[in-house]
């Protein structure tokens, strides 16, 4: 349930970035929507059903398409189904909120979406996700159900942040850093920061120019940045240590966390940011599978 809510939120964030980029940048505007597909992993399904890349089609696909398992619609539906299954365990406020979110999303169609505007809609999705977290924080006992909720949120978030870094990540970290950052690159990395609500934090922390390496440092290494890989792994490990301190998955998660906690960015990125992310995604998915085996199959 928490995984799907988090996924819906992140898709909304990616759409928001693509939308801002497409409106302010030059060149082929439809191209800015490509990352939405590559991050959410629906490229092939998209090409099959929608064909050529276009803003309207990507938005339709990523927001409303019930057949696309990585759409906001499908994520909210899955969250609601999961919540329904554990309705007796979670606070009724949480159930009501997830259910209401779904009901509202179900009533959505292209016309209604145009009416609210994409930005307005993305804001709404984000708010519903904030609300979800707020209810869990404010009402749930600090015991297993809550730990599992945290686990889902942070596994999903780590996956999404990593995919976000992969776009334009090729070669970042390899060789000497270029002295001048290409303006489109700069625009892109600023949009990436905004999408994870980290732009202001970046300013406060670096007080300097935006470079791909600094953004990577912020979103990979910094434990105090709530959407960084490090922070996500820390939360995953914390949750796992409570629910299964001796489980194999806890050991695996601890290893992954240690890499970020004690590692150095230049070493992690020695093959490039894209390669790092690729490996990280394999690891995090393996961890997800392991958690599933350890707790749900037992």
């Amino acid at each position, binding site marked *: 349930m928490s995984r799907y809510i988090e996924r819906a939120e992140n898709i909304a964030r990616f759409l928001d970035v693509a*939308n*801002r980029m497409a*409106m*302010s940048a*030059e060149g082929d505007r439809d191209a800015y929507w490509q990352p939405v597909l590559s991050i959410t992993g629906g490229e092939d399904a998209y090409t099959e059903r929608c064909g050529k890349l276009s803003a309207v089609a990507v938005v339709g696909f990523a927001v409303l398409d019930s057949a696309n398992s990585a759409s906001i619609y499908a994520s909210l539906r899955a969250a609601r189904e999961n919540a329904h299954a554990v309705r007796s365990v979670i606070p009724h406020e949480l159930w009501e909120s997830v259910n209401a979110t779904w009901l509202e999303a179900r009533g959505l169609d292209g016309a209604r979406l145009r009416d609210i505007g994409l*930005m307005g809609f993305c804001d709404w999705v984000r708010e519903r996700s904030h609300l979800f977290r707020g209810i869990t924080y404010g009402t749930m006992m600090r015991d297993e159900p809550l730990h599992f909720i945290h686990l889902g949120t942070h596994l999903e978030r780590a996956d999404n942040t990593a995919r976000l870094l992969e776009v334009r990540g090729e070669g970042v970290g390899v060789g000497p850093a270029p002295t001048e950052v290409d303006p489109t690159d700069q625009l892109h990395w600023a949009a990436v920061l905004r999408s994870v609500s980290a732009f*202001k934090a970046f*300013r*406060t922390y670096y*007080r300097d120019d935006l470079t791909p390496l600094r953004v990577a440092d912020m979103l990979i290494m910094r434990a105090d940045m709530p959407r960084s890989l490090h922070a996500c792994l820390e939360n995953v490990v914390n949750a796992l240590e409570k629910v299964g301190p001796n489980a194999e998955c806890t050991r695996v998660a601890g290893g992954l966390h240690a890499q970020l906690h004690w590692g150095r960015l230049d070493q992690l990125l020695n093959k490039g940011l894209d390669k790092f992310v690729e490996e990280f995604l394999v690891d995090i998915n393996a961890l997800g599978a392991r958690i599933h085996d350890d707790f749900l199959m037992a």
Partner: protein
Amino acid sequence: MAFDEMKTSDGKARAPYKVYENWLLSMSPDLLPAKHEQADALFRKLGITFAVYGDQEGTERLIPFDPIPRIIDAGEWKKLSDGCCQRVRALNAFLKDLYHDQEILKAEVIPRSQVFNNGMYRPEMQGLDVARDVYIHIAGIDLVRTGENDFYVLEDNLRSPSGVSYMLENRTMMLRLFPDLFHRHRVAGVEQYPDKLLKNLRSVAPAACDGDPTVVLLTPGYYNSAYFEHAFLAEQMGIELVEGRDLFVSEGLVWMRTTRGPKRVDVIYRRIDDDFLDPLAFNPDSTLGVPGLLSVYRAGGVTLANAIGTGVADDKATYTYVPDMIRFYLGEEPILNNVPTWRLERDSDRKYVLEHLAELVVKEVQGSGGYGMLVGPTSTREQVEEFRTRIIANPSNYIAQPTLALSTVPTLVDQGIAPRHVDLRPYVLMGETATLVPGGLTRVALREGSLVVNSSQGGGTKDTWVLEDARC
């Protein structure tokens, strides 16, 4: 008949507005009013409000936002942008000269009385070197248009011009309300403004600063009408928003109180007038300032942006000399013209003005924000006579200008879409060079026929689009 920026006299759309007009015609007439309402609700939610002085209720008000953009093409913008930068370079050179060798006074280009009788002249600045010789870090140049190629500078705002947050927020709002319009136009971005401003402020850190300069924004506090803007800019730049009581002077430096002890401050972007900066040096009753700040400033321990004493260069009488400054310091001809101005301390000027008071605009030399001015053609006989008495009592306190037929831009009003008068304030940043982001704040007089665009007088704002050159 005022120049309309969208339509020619035979009702055709001018080039920059062609695409917009087509779009508008294809939309239902209910669309704009609906978007207008959405915008109001959003601005309220975001808390983008303005406190109006003299309003007994003390309530916060929204600045009316008009959903129809003001569009400027690349060629027009180039001229405006070059002209504004030229002006600020000359004004900055003037301040440096005035507070050092005073060549311009020796050359009798500007009379000494104009400077030394000016309340905004600061003897404390005499002989003082400021970092990188920059006095005017941020300037807002008010421009008006009266014809196809006729732009005039109405005034220079060199103290702490406000409104830039509206330039940024209006764009955000337009992107949100009309994403499809941005797909049809190539509108130059303005969102890099906070970045540029921060960079600019960091570049003028005092020589004494070693390492990473700490920049803060000094606000008079949340009762100030522009408090939202102060908070907004500080947030956007990722710097601390401080009040006077958060800072103190010790060991010849300025420090900020933090939860981890004092932190040295190198650059203060101050949104407080000179008079209130330091109760030990200026207004002793000021509780907004920092005691001892001036002594640190004079010793080169901290940079103030803008510098102290810039007001001497932006009053409405000094304004008349700016074209001369451009020739004197830069050896260039002004790119943008001044509005012809009568100085009322001159007998011949005064005589003419008093005879034609009902046709002219009269302004207090040091007034701002649309307070203390007379717009002859739209005033009652009593108002005109009252101004006559005031002018005779203190002529050098006033200037007069012809009533310009400010250009109009279509604006959404209760009755539908109608032309309303506008001005434009681009923001020039001065560091190593003068630069500005492609855009500015367009203010619009919402009342029919009104020429007063100030927000304190019921004006609204529009998003200003600078179109980029068509590329293939």
